[in-house]
């Protein structure tokens, strides 16, 4: 994984509350056996109509999303299933961070493991972002700070170990594998 320090980008706003993983990537695309190429199916049922034609009024089909890497969504983003295909699809589409006031637990975990930053902000910051689509924001993972073009800043919470892994571009499996002696001791000591 590439180390992540800062992300600077225009935002793309989908101002919908409770965007679930079935919207991020519908289940019929989960018969894949790889993690690549899911971007074209991200939000498939919102991007395409029943005949597969592009819905040109949906934000992800508009030219201004090109190059934007920060998605701002309504409250409670990523609820529903555990499918890691959801962050894979968003990353493949080009996003590097998702901002909301609440992000569902499993989606947040999955995102952190893949270098998609789940950024939870306060209501006031969120309101501003929803009201100003396309605003250029800066996300600093080192200082866990989101900076708006107004100069206003908001600190965001992020699990400390995941943050260090992301800053250094290392995955957590390596750390777990190093725990082998402790795991062996635990297994030997278990009575059942």
């Amino acid at each position, binding site marked *: 994984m590439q180390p992540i320090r800062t992300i600077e980008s225009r935002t793309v706003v989908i101002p*919908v*509350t*409770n965007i*679930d993983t*079935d*919207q991020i990537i*519908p*289940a*019929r695309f*989960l*018969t*894949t*056996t*790889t*993690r690549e190429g899911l971007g074209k199916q991200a939000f498939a*049922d919102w991007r395409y109509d*029943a005949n597969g034609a592009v819905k040109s009024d949906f934000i992800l089909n508009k030219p201004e999303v090109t190059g934007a890497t920060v998605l701002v969504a*309504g*409250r*409670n983003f990523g*609820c*529903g*299933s*555990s*499918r*890691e295909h959801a962050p894979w699809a968003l990353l493949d589409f080009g996003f590097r961070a998702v901002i909301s006031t*609440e992000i*569902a*637990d*499993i989606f947040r*975990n*999955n995102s952190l*493991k*893949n270098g998609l930053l789940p950024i939870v902000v306060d209501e006031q910051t969120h309101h501003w972002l929803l009201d100003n689509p396309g605003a250029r924001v800066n996300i600093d993972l080192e200082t866990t700070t989101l900076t708006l073009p107004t100069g206003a800043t908001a600190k965001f919470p992020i*699990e*400390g*170990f995941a943050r*260090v892994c992301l800053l250094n571009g290392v*995955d*957590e*499996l390596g*750390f*777990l*594998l190093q*725990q*082998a002696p*402790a*795991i062996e001791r*635990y*297994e030997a000591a*278990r009575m*059942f």
Partner: protein
Amino acid sequence: MSAKTLFEKVWEQHQVVPESADTPAVLYIDLHLVHEVTSPQAFSVLRSQNLKVRRPERVLATMDHSTPTDPDEVFGRVPIKVESAARQVKEFEKNCKEFGIELMGLGSEYRGIVHVIGPELGATQPGKTIVCGDSHTATHGAFGALAFGIGTTEVGHVLATQCLLQRRPKTLAIEVTGKLRPGVTAKDLILAIIGEIGVSGGTGYVIEYRGSAIEALSMEERMTVCNMSIEAGARAGMIAPDETTFAYLRGRRFAPQGKAWDEAVARWRELKTDPGAKFDRVVTIDADKLEPMISYGTHPGMVVPITGTVPDIANDPVHAKALNYMGLQGGEAMVGKPIQVVFIGSCTNGRLSDLELAAGVLKGHKVAGGVRMLVVPGSQQVKREAERLGLDKIFTEAGAEWRESGCSMCIGMNGDTAGRGQYAVSTSNRNFEGRQGAGARTLLASPATAAAAAIAGKIADPRAFLPH
């Protein structure tokens, strides 16, 4: 020693390395349930790093999500129609073989939805940590296990190390007082709970369901309740093990036997939350007041009593968007709304008692004209047992389709879907847009309510149809 909750006891027994400010806990996983959809990319990681599965005997593998329910496809008389699903099934067979994992594959008599077979095989036990690349893993918490869904990267972590890195979640007690009235099921209870606390009300928490109404539930009913914890945002839901739990597990294939059984039960009795133990949050629900519930919107918190009306909420874009998708108007009565599809099955309501409940309602009736009813047992064992009891005859004579086990129309990635614009009364767990097929409109309800809708051809109060 300080008073501890059920969750705290299970958590502490599984800490290989406790959490610190810098690192999450290394948590040992007793049972890893693996299926074909969320594992291929994890096996690829193992292969690319030349890693083995650390404890193949702690893995229970089956296929359920993308598998067909048509017997001809299941037993190979015709090819699996969804080609990508057929490839996924083949790849899973190959992965299990290569990594030395026993697979309850397509032809296995023990195959079924992963959350149905874990308990019925006795692999799900009190005090265990159980994970699966599926958010409905919370189901297994009904036994007093700490069970939660994980992503594919974490599936790889568990395969390689039998451990996960986890921060300790908060605890939420949902105290259900009183007693469910006749015609009000465990499904109605959990829908009411989600309606009460909201779809993100449990985010960051492990729920413990407790109180007299919970203690009175059978194991299958408890599984229905815990199953939908994730629909309230909670990764896990737990119920303290008791005599009901032990009676269910005794004699099952993977349950301890003989002296080991007695020792296990003695250990399991210690798991319940100590008097005086503190939860981070407590919510109380009065079971006496609950009615059969049905969803009207596009998430499982959008529910009303079956006798109710679609809420009329002005200036709420979330509500308006949901009603627009569902084709419903605020103020409209739920009862009497015509429906086109009825689905009975899933890890929420695909067990024997669910099929018995639906069959009890359906017996002597016909599925209404223009309604397609699909009954999908949760496992091959459930299917055989239902057939022994003659339930399949009740369903097929009424005009319903009787299928092989699997996730089927709950997830609509296996060939079983509801059509665009169709109303489907479903015993499954999610009514998200497109969940049961692009454009399909899901109405979540109990097996009794679903069967009543099949007979009436419209949403109906199941209490009018229940056998006395």
